[in-house]
């Protein structure tokens, strides 16, 4: 399937297209998304009800939807949906003793609220699905799109992700040792050698087509595995490549989800040391933080790279050639591992 357009809201300046030229450094363990001025695209009456998750997703999707009158489906991946609104709603249930509750928090908090909102705003009555497989939610959204194209049930699809930082989740994950306890700069994150990572958020949207006309990139395949043994991950990656008629040497660039957590970054070393020693190697979580659907940002990044844009310095671990065939390897907490293969559209 081919990527015709991309759009992104993240802790970097992706909403205005400046991300590839200049990156923003962060200190601390929360990388919050930089949101654009939504008032030009979302009616005030709608905007005032939206939590950050819905705002980011809508703000990221609308620039694509506005020019697209024929869309065969909206497929999103989100681990948590509007978690902040969900928690507000649950607190209301307790505070008001299961009495009369306000509808807005509930309506906006379900994971599929964004896909529903987008369908209503674009008057799109076609296929509408949200995948919620935690750290593989975006991979499953891509897989859904691949299957629809393969079965010729769609020609054009909007596929994307959204996940937000919620105070509640952040506090729980902090107690579970998921985030750094020390103040650390994003420039030093990947070499920190300490436990935990940093929390991020964002939304990436992709207009996908079954045809290569005007494509900026091609998403060739996606696969995932849960709770693998160390030795299984190499075999899994090899199987994925050979399924697509490739060997490791055919991959010129790898984007890894390295996040500075010494407990789980070894997975990336395992794969790269064994299979991709000489290839370009890029990171992205030192730019946008860790969140369950962060691989969507990596896909956005890969699309920009194969479209000919130069990688920001902060993302380069090793670079020796122009990226044309990119493998994204990402895992969530060392439990859910995903591979996404992105190629230059004319290859």
């Amino acid at each position: 399937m081919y990527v015709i357009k991309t759009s992104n809201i993240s802790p970097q300046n992706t909403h205005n297209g400046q991300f590839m030229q200049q990156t923003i450094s962060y200190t601390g363990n929360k990388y919050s998304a930089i949101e654009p001025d939504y008032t030009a695209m979302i009616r005030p009456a709608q905007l005032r009800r939206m939590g950050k998750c819905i705002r980011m997703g809508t703000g990221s999707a609308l620039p694509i939807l506005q020019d697209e009158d024929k869309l065969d489906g909206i497929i999103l991946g989100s681990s948590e949906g509007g978690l902040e609104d969900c928690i507000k709603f649950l607190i209301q249930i307790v505070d008001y003793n299961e009495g009369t509750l306000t509808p807005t928090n509930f309506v906006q908090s379900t994971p599929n609220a964004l896909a529903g909102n987008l369908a209503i705003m674009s008057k799109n009555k076609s296929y509408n699905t949200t995948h919620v497989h935690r750290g593989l939610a975006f991979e499953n959204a891509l897989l859904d799109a691949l299957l629809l194209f393969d079965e010729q049930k769609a020609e054009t699809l909007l596929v994307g992700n959204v996940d937000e930082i919620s105070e509640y989740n952040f506090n729980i994950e902090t107690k579970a040792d998921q985030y750094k306890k020390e103040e650390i700069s994003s420039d030093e994150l990947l070499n920190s050698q300490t436990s935990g990572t940093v929390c991020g958020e964002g939304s990436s949207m992709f207009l996908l087509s079954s045809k290569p006309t005007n494509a900026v990139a091609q998403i060739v395949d996606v696969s995932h595995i849960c709770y693998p043994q160390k030795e299984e991950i190499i075999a899994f990656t090899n199987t994925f490549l050979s399924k697509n008629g490739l060997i490791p040497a055919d991959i010129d660039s790898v984007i890894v989800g390295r996040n500075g957590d010494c407990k789980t970054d070894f997975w990336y070393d395992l794969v790269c040391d064994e299979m991709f020693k000489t290839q370009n190697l890029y990171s992205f979580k030192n730019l946008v933080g860790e969140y369950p659907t962060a691989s969507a940002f990596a896909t956005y990044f890969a699309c920009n790279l194969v479209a000919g844009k130069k990688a920001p310095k902060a993302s380069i671990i090793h670079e020796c050639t122009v990226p044309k065939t990119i493998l994204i390897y990402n895992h969530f907490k060392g439990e859910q591992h995903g591979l996404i293969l992105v190629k230059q559209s004319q290859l």
Partner: protein
Amino acid sequence: MDKEQLKKELINHIITYLNLSDYTPEEITADMPLFGDAGLELDSIDSLELIVMMEREYGVKLTNPTEGRKILIDVNSMADFIIANKK
């Protein structure tokens, strides 16, 4: 609390509950229509929020939906209903 005070308080609650960040309390008058093309242009979800607000803040329940059309006209009518029904 007299009616004027109640109306001022209601306006502040409306702004908070409905997240009307575009408005200051001074910009909302007691006779400004809540629904329709003029005034605040609220919608059906807002009406539910207003009903919840009246119950939580003033202990006043609006159980008959047809009553809502007469009560949720503007801040004046809401204040009248609260004064008449507050225990």
